[in-house]
């Protein structure tokens, strides 16, 4: 078991590296295809089913600037896998270099408790929580743009902005009455 560390390697010139973690490997690929279209900076996308990452690629793997956990709300397994993977991240990542992306939140069959659990998880780690629509091209484009904005900051490509500063503004907060029974 090895921790993934944010500053263990030298950064590349004008490069941003993003790691997409999704246990079901559905949304990953389309998102990756859209992410590498970016022209202003070189975006390297690494895909993983879960953490820890295998040891054999350790040498060739660039420094990861942003880790994105994609959670499909319709599957409990997806959430559990993401939760289990969190252990293999260095605490330094949680200073603005991790974000959660939730898909299928609009699905009617999703139990509200699961969304609440994801929100609590994101809030306890002070990470931003993004919602994405994975079925439509527009949704993929939107998700890509939002990820790129965060990625550029996390990779240090935006002057006068740091990942910690951005995440202090965008981190997920849980409303105090989340444990109250809802009356809808």
């Amino acid at each position, binding site marked *: 078991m090895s921790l993934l560390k944010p500053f263990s390697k*030298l950064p590349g010139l004008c490069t941003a590296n993003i790691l997409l973690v999704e246990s079901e490997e559905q949304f990953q690929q389309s998102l990756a295809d859209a992410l590498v279209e970016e022209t202003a900076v070189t975006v390297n996308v690494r895909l993983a089913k879960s953490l820890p990452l295998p040891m054999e690629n350790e040498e060739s793997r660039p420094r990861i600037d942003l880790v994105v956990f994609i959670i499909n709300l319709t599957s409990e397994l997806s959430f559990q896998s993401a939760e289990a993977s969190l252990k293999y991240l260095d605490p330094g990542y949680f200073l603005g270099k991790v974000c959660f992306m939730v898909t299928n939140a609009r699905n009617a069959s999703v139990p509200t408790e699961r969304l609440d659990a994801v929100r609590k998880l994101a809030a306890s780690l002070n990470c931003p929580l993004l919602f994405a629509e994975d079925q439509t091209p527009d949704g993929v484009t939107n998700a890509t743009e939002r990820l790129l904005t965060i990625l550029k900051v996390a990779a240090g490509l935006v002057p006068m902005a740091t990942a910690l500063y951005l995440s202090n503004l965008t981190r997920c907060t849980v409303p105090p009455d989340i444990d109250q029974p809802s009356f809808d």
Partner: protein
Amino acid sequence: MMAEGGQAAAELSEAAQSELMDQCEDQFAQLEKLQNEIILFDFCENPQDQAVNRLMATEAELKQWLTVEPKLLASNSEVLLKAGKEEMLKLCSELEMVVSCHEAKRDKLRETKELEQKWLEEKKQALIAANDHVDRLQMEKGKLPGHSVLHDTKAKIQKMKVYQERLMECLGDILEKHVPCPHQNEPSTNKKKKKNITQELDEDLISLNEILELLMNKVLNTPHDPYVTIDNTFWPPYVELLLRYGIAVRHHENNFKIRLETFC
């Protein structure tokens, strides 16, 4: 900054280019130094509470921002010009995007405004029409004599009452004339024999008028049980008359009970 240097270098003079390269190398050397420090430092750091960690990091960053002093990118004016130009162009393109976005928004708002104005106009017209209607109704109400409807109704009721009175009087007259009270006309019409026999039991005979009244009251007061028991106050010929002409009906099981025929 390094990126800008790399791209712009192609068109810069040799002196500027070499200066820029030197700067880049300096920066990169510093970066490597810091990187090594971080790696060394990482080993002795043990994972702490997330929130405390975050607070410390944020405080450190704040301190950093407070102490940092802005410094010139490079002293070479050529480099500055190039970098400034690039920055300006970037800013221009971004501002153009903002302009087009705002124009689109403005057009949309204008459209919405027109729609809303149209809607307002329609609503105003509707209000005017409704006000007209109210005015007209009030005028009509004012024109009419105060309680004309009430008066009309009262007059009609009065007329009906007079008519009913007349009908009742007529009926009374007919009954008095053609079916008089049994013991009034007995002395004049009946024979002496018969009079003697009937005298005792016919003392309190009632008129047809009263029989009818009894029947009618019974029907109105107790509709579920409209039968009236025949006793000795009913003169049998009158009962017979009522039954024969279908004004009254006998009870199916009890011969001594009659009720008024159900006239619709």
